[in-house]
């Protein structure tokens, strides 16, 4: 098993931390993992992306030109990464940030209205956990219990009181993702 994933959106959306939780979850399952962020002069509102690879065998390049799964959270990222999903791969996007939907027919496309749901839940901070839930629903690459362990490992202890809220958001994300 090998999953090559790009998560791309605006800085401040929790792109890097979502990737980190995914990487920690893979580690908990005993997989090989790599987490490679774009580390430009990132700022809230600028673009940010992270490549996460989970694999049963040693990982070669942490930088890729094609992905099994692309999680697209804004229009610039759609423009940049839409064409880089492998044939038969998965593209997940948040409906809020996207004006031009993908025209590709050779991949599976899912929409998750995580921004709207986070607003409904009156909690912007769970946005990335809703997305993560959606991802795990369409591609259950790691067990939920290991994701929760991964979440615990990647959060500093002072934030551990937020774990139940994040778990609830992951479960909600699994419900709201839709195939297009």
């Amino acid at each position, binding site marked *: 098993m090998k999953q090559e994933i790009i998560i791309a959106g605006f800085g401040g959306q929790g792109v890097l931390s979502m990737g*980190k939780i995914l*990487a*920690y979850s893979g*580690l908990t399952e005993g997989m*090989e*993992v*790599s*987490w*490679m*962020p774009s*580390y*430009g*002069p990132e700022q809230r509102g600028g673009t940010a992306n992270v490549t996460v690879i989970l694999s049963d065998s040693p*990982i*070669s*390049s*942490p*930088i*890729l*030109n*094609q992905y099994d799964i692309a999680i697209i959270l804004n229009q610039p990222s759609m423009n940049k990464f839409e064409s880089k999903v492998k044939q038969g791969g998965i593209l997940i996007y948040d409906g809020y940030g996207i004006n031009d939907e993908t025209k590709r027919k050779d991949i599976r496309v899912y929409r998750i209205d995580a921004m709207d749901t986070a607003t409904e839940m009156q909690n912007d901070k769970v946005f990335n956990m809703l997305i993560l839930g959606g991802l795990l629903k369409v591609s259950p690459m790691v067990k939920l219990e290991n994701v929760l362990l991964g979440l615990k*490992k990647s959060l500093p202890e002072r934030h551990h009181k937020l774990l139940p809220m994040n778990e609830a958001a992951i479960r909600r994300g699994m419900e709201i993702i839709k195939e297009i």
Partner: protein
Amino acid sequence: MQEEIKLMKGNEAIAHAAIRYGTDGYFGYPITPQSEIMETLMAEQPWETTGMTVLQAESEVAAINMVYGGAGSGRRVMTSSSSPGISLKLEGISYIAGAELPCLIINVMRGGPGLGTIQPSQADYFQTVKGGGHGDYRLITLAPYSVQEMADFVALGFDLAFKYSNPAMILADGIIGQMMEKVVLPPFRPRKTEAEIIAESPWAVQGKLKGRKVNVITSLELDPVAMEQNNLRFQAKYRKIEETEVRYEEYNCSDAEYLLIAFGSSARICQKTVELAREEGIKLGLLRPITLWPFPSSAIAAYAEKANVKGMLSVELNAGQMVEDVRLAVNGKVKVEHFGRLGGMVFTPDEILAALKTKIM
């Protein structure tokens, strides 16, 4: 006890490995993309546990001269920076090499020249292995290609530095510094005691000791006859290092018709290129120099002599630096070309394969 596997950035791995090695002091000045080294050291507060000193100096120049002083007293001392900061340290590095002192220097390279960019680059190859600072000196240079090697090369770098009384450098780049992957950290070992340092490093300055004459450490020798003798001693040491300390790794080389030569993060990306090429039936291999100085010239020359090897592509995040050493090794026996991206841009595995097809095949 079962080994504990952790997930961390290459920069963080260096900091943890330094504490665990029993390093006596770190002196640095922040610069992207390596700032996590000092950040992690400060967060870990090793002065409370092992007694290691961690100091943010007022400048890179100050930091390297603190290293010079610490090394002169026989301590295990280190500094880290990124390309522009290393340029500032070069005067000190030349002095340390001239005084024949051991220390560890880490360069997490970024795109230049000048202040350049903060994105990954390998454009400091020449600076590191061909001098950089003034005078006929050499830096033992290790090129890690994984977070695990970032951790492992701290001990290797210090051990080689002390074995040869010579500065060692870990030459990484923004990719290896910033990426997170699994790492098994080395076990803790205690820092050397004063008595151990005096016994192991009779050259170290330790004040006035009973029964030992005062040591003087300097790179200055105004008598050219004596200075030539110093240089001949350095050169003899460098030849010995070249004979004994070459390290490299081979991937799919045994039946290869074409070879990629790449170090550090480029070698990681090239591994994927080898996978892609093999899927197409192209017999491609990768030779990865681990020590950039001493360079694995003999290993590369041996492949150039093989009847089935038709050409080599030196893949580097620069405009063509290591390719010169590859060509020297190959000496015209097979075609050698270079492929690179510049200024912080990074090639993808398929771009390298395309370059191989147009430049070599």
